[in-house]
């Protein structure tokens, strides 16, 4: 496997009143070009921290990140981020939000007409050309997230970083966006790192699922290769034995080996409901 993006022994400490808090401990991961990797783990296990380090928004205390053999130490548009809560500028229209990114990345490289075409093209990829002149408060949550994805794609990033991109959406909208994302990934072959809480989403979209252990000093627990052929269809996969096997594997990691211990009462309860959780994975994603 050709190494495109390398995380080598990444550790990070955050200062707290009592000293230093080790959030991540020796996270090592190699990602190939065009690969779709999901990070999954319980809340607070440092998934977002990993993503932020790759994005350059946080600096690793030890170890580092290499993208095409060059060290990452500051944020940049070649590692575009799709934020959980869309993070569109509320005073700009959908078009202008994407335009801000395009102007910044392609200044001097594209003519005005080319930029306009490129902006429309990217909004078209996420099926948002009907709302070019709408401001974020005039469109639904799913649409905002689509524009957020269009903005990230328009930067032509080497790596697309997605921080729970569909976490705040309802199940149906989420399914639509997952399908769109699969199509875009098939067309463009982006390298993607996505954080998710949703086991189905992870299995459906990913080439590999990286499962994180609980913090403090969280690290990679297990990596699961999802060698289901693409294109994947959610309805067909629902009855697929391998798909269910992968799902089972992730669930057992999350709820047996890395069960989140909140307190004694919650632990007891979790034990009682463990069986249920496996049987009803939708509930898991809803209860995050």
């Amino acid at each position, binding site marked *: 496997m050709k190494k495109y993006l390398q995380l080598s022994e990444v550790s990070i400490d955050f200062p707290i009143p009592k000293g230093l808090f080790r959030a991540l401990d020796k996270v090592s991961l190699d990602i190939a070009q065009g690969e779709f990797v999901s990070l999954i783990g319980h809340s607070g296990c440092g998934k977002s921290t990993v993503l932020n380090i790759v*994005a350059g928004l946080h600096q690793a205390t030890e170890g580092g990140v290499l993208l095409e053999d060059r060290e990452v130490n500051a944020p940049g548009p070649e590692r575009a*981020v799709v*934020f959980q*809560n869309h*993070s569109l500028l509320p*005073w700009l229209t959908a078009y202008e939000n994407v335009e801000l990114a395009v102007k*910044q990345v392609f200044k001097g490289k594209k003519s005005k007409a080319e930029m306009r075409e490129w902006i429309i093209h990217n909004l078209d990829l996420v099926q948002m050309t009907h709302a070019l002149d709408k401001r974020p*408060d005039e469109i639904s949550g799913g649409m905002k997230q689509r524009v957020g994805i269009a903005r990230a794609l328009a*930067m032509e990033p080497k790596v697309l970083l997605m921080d729970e991109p569909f976490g705040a959406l309802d199940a149906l909208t989420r399914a639509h966006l997952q399908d769109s994302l699969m199509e875009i990934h098939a067309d463009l072959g982006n390298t993607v790192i996505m954080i998710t809480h949703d086991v189905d989403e992870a299995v459906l979209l990913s080439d590999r699922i990286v499962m994180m252990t609980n913090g403090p000093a969280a690290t990679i627990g297990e990596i699961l290769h999802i060698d289901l052929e693409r294109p994947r269809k959610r309805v067909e996969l629902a009855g697929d034995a391998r798909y269910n096997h992968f799902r089972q594997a992730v669930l057992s990691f999350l709820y047996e080996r890395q069960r989140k211990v909140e307190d004694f009462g919650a632990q007891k309860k979790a034990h009682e409901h463990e069986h249920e959780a496996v049987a009803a994975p939708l509930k898991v994603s809803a209860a995050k």
Partner: protein
Amino acid sequence: MKSTPLSSISQPSGRTLPGLDLFMQLSRSLLLPVIGILLFLFIWFNGARMIHTSLGEFPGPVQVWEQTTNLVAEHQQEHQREQDFYARQEVRNAQTLAANPEAKVTIRPYTGKPTFLDQIVTSLVTVLSGFVLASLIAIPLGILIGLNESVYAAVNPLIQLFKPVSPLAWLPLVTMVVSAVYVSQDPAFSKSFLTSMFTVLLCCLWPTVINTAVGVANVSKDLLNVSQVLRLGVLTHVFKIIVPASLPLMFTGLRLSLGIAWMVLIAAEMLAQSPGLGKFVWDEFQNGSSNSLGRIMVAVLAIGLIGFMLDRSMLFLQRKVSWDKNAIMR
């Protein structure tokens, strides 16, 4: 307010409801304020008759109305006199030139007493100049403080120290400094104007500085991350992200500043005897005729009305500029 479907279902005669709604709406926007004003006039009318001062009865609504018409009439007379004065000079100059084409002719400026309306204009010009100048300083300073915690730490004690200072404390210093520094053969502005303006400026800086800084410091982390990922330059960052995001608080500061500016100006004009509404009030007080209190009351009402209109115009400006049209602004 719209009638809810529920009420139109529960009441078969729901057709009268829109009428009732309209009545409620009208009463809230028109009837109740009118009742409030009438009640105030009633109390004022009766209360004023009970207060006897050395200058006669305290002015009630009737006297105030009389004085308002008087002041307007005086303004018109004075204006007429001024025009006549210039017309006479021109006629005289024309005659002189006809007799002797070589003669040097001059137009002497009219030196009549400024009327009430003239004083209003003077005050408005002064307050707006001071306010605009203060805003030009305060907004960039606020942005700088909000962006940079070190600058904040350095400047904050000074802001806290100067914010509570009364304009009257500044006034003597400003007067002396203006007299000492502003020496020119052909002054573009009068010294009294500059004194009032700088006093206003010093007092109305702070609300804008503080509110802008708070607005800038509280721009959402997500938007800052977007800016970082895009590697926006400093200027783009400030103008595309920071300023729009902190606009609502900036305007809160500007409106507070303008309100303070107007109050400060009247006090400064009274104390410094510089032209304006404050001087008008003081002159009338010193004048001590039986009309004086009524005329002062007219000035009081005019000051209130102008302050109100200044605030409304800022609100209008905010509505024009702000991206968040749904925000409740009052």
